[in-house]
């Protein structure tokens, strides 16, 4: 116990005696953590957006107009039985027209449906099928239209006119969202690596300034861990202060900028992003661990006898 107190005292003393390297480490850690703190929620938000886009991709099964309600109900049960189907939604002819009207209205275009002759509804009824996973779209499709005797796809029910999937659309969405995600991950990884190197370098400089001291300690008979602990305590303290500064800035930014925007801008939907308290804990933990371990590893070079 007295050892632990001694090491903590030593770490604090070193910070008091030479403030400049400590301040450098603190600033570096603060900047790094700030970057991470912004990046983590952004990454998660784009993840959320991607999911939203994926939600809209499905399989539309258009039906003949003369399908009876019994036939439709039977088909619905059948579709629900297909593997990988997450949900099935029946869209009647009237509903389809309604959707079209809404969409036109939303895009500020004239309501073309009023010009339909004799108020005839040309839109077919359909089933909107959502797969549990975008990649399973194809297997559902082949379940709906298995190859018949002639080798050409035959629908499982006579009321099915056509099965349309937005396959090309889906795959392009998949590529784009995948690319965006990977792009962000790569940038995040590069940033993290750069910051780790930066923190490591700052620590190395501060230790390099004291390598004579380390040498003397060794010659007086200090074990490597006896020399190392105060440096790690110092790193821990710098990491904590730097992390705390970054968290404070993040908090101010969240209160002043993000939260007011969150109500009006849909992009910053708070639900999928990490809870702030959890984020703070993660960031502080990372900051302290990185600077303490960084100190320990850097010292190893000077500790070789």
């Amino acid at each position: 116990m007295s050892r632990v107190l001694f090491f903590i005292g030593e770490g604090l003393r070193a910070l008091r005696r030479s403030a400049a390297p400590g301040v450098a480490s603190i600033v570096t850690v603060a900047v790094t953590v700030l970057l991470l703190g912004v990046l983590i929620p952004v990454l998660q938000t784009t993840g959320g957006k991607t999911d939203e886009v994926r939600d809209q991709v499905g399989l539309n099964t258009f039906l003949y107009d003369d399908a009876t309600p019994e036939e439709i109900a039977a088909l619905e049960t059948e579709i629900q039985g297909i593997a990988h189907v997450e949900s099935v939604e029946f869209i009647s002819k009237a509903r389809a027209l309604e959707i079209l009207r809404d969409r036109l209205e939303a895009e500020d275009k004239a309501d073309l449906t009023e010009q339909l002759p004799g108020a005839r509804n040309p839109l077919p009824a359909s089933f909107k099928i959502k797969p549990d996973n975008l990649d399973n779209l194809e297997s559902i499709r082949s379940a709906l239209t298995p190859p018949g005797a002639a080798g050409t796809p035959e629908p499982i029910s006579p009321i099915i006119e056509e099965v349309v999937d937005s396959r090309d659309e889906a795959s392009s969405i998949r590529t784009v969202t995948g690319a965006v995600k990977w792009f962000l991950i790569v940038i995040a990884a590069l940033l993290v690596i750069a910051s780790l190197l930066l923190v490591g370098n700052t620590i190395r400089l501060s230790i390099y300034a004291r390598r004579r001291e380390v040498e003397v300690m060794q010659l007086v008979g200090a074990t490597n861990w006896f020399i190392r602990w105060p440096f790690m305590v110092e790193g821990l303290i710098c990491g904590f202060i730097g992390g705390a500064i970054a968290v404070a800035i993040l908090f101010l930014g969240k209160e002043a900028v993000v939260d007011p925007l969150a109500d009006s801008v849909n992009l910053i939907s708070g639900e999928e992003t990490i809870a702030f308290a959890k984020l703070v804990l993660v960031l502080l933990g990372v900051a302290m661990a990185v600077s303490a371990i960084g100190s320990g590893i850097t010292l190893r070079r000077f500790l070789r006898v």
Partner: protein
Amino acid sequence: MARHQTSALLRERGQRRPEHLTERRARPPIVELRKVGKVYPGGHVALERVSLRVDRGEFVFLVGPTGCGKSTLIKLLIRELEPTQGEVLIAGRDIATLPDKRIPHLRRRIGTVFQDFKLLPSRTVYDNVAYALQVIGASRAEIRSKVPDALRLVGLADKTGNYPDQLSGGEQQRLSVARAFVNHPPLLLADEPTGNLDPATSVGIMQTLYRINKTGTTVVVVTHDREMVDKMRRRVIALEAGHVVRDQAAGRYTDEESTREFAARLRDEMGVEDEAY
């Protein structure tokens, strides 16, 4: 005055050499070199086939011109360097066989006064000495009682709060001695402890080393100050170009001198009037 204070740390034990020297000859010598050679990377030969032994309680001078391998020899003893051939034995153990983890323990048993002092610049005089005790896990109480004693021994009792850069060269040297001795190592190595010091201060340091030797500690002093060595009348090992060229007692070998008598004679012979400290 510091000199007259009786230190609990260093009570002189009469006028005789420590008993274990004469009675227990069977114990291995505290330092033994067997055909030790050291060639530095680049081909410079610092030591060549050096064999010597130092028994417990001895006071030995290691002399020779600059570059003859004296400092290398000291570095070999604390395994700051490793010999390229031969064996270095401390208390009968070949230190090349020590695992790296045990090196700090070896160094704790050997007090070393370095040529360049090797003080910790960010620590006060007191803390520099205390560090040598903290390293071995001494309790606070132990540190509080031993550090002032050691500082009194070297005459720095009134400078405890100063930092090394606020001390004179001689004071830094004495601080280095205090740190080397504070945990009572059985072996004390001093590399040029009087280098660049005025004669009065040199005598003071030698007196301190002599006093430490009287408590039973083996003392090995490296120096190129032949005059001082001749007057000390101790065993002298002379090195030249990496070889031992002489190993004998210089002058009348007087065992029976007290520290006071020793210092008085030394001052007299060196022509030093005042006390060093």
